[in-house]
């Protein structure tokens, strides 16, 4: 099971917000969490999602349970993530979609 806890930075993998960065704000039960982009930054609305539709990253924000969008943004501003959130609101996945032989290897990057 992925580690999805409050403050965890995730990427949505399903739906119209797929590929966008978001932050977990609350854990509702073992299947659902409350997330937010916040919308002004990454376009992800404050909403309930199935954890199966999230891909967790190793990044975590220092926010309290049920933090507002403003609080999340403030927490983001404290870290280096703010610009990353603004710039890479949606992860570019073109390189991953290429066939294996055309992809740059991990060694070279």
């Amino acid at each position: 099971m992925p580690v999805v806890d409050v403050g965890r930075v995730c990427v949505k993998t399903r739906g119209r917000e797929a590929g966008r960065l978001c932050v977990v704000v609350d854990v509702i039960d073992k299947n659902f969490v409350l997330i937010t982009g916040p919308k002004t930054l990454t376009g992800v609305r404050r909403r309930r999602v199935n954890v199966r539709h999230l891909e967790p990253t190793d990044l975590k924000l220092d926010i309290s349970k049920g933090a507002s969008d403003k609080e999340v943004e403030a927490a983001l501003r404290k870290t280096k993530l703010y610009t990353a959130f603004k710039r890479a609101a949606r992860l570019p996945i073109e390189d991953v979609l290429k066939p294996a032989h055309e992809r740059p290897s991990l060694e070279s990057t």
Partner: protein
Amino acid sequence: MVQKRSRSWRRVKVRTPSGAVAIRYRKPKPNPPRCAKCGAELHGIPRVRPPELHRIAYSEKTVNRPYGGNLCPNCLETAIKEKVRLVVLSEGMRTDLRRRSRKARKKARRKRQRKKEEAAEKEAEETPPSNASKA
């Protein structure tokens, strides 16, 4: 006007005004749109001939998702997950996982050793005063 006909075209029986049943020919339906990666059928995309695609609105030919109408949701999900893991790898654990060359390994070993020696020296310098203070 004489209708174009072909054995492979779909035949539809139509009752004409005179009461006779005539056979009309309909163009074949193209294959359903498919995922570019795995070939699964895509839902929500009309199964029409190319000129018709040109005529209908963009919103009718896509689904509201990145790569909607091109990739199936499963392939998109795997691609995104792969990308996320790639990014995590490249920023966090990459150095541990990267196969290092012989030279690089040797260099790293020497560096580690040097660090160890330095730490030992530092400790050796610091210990006598602390012992003295204790005594």
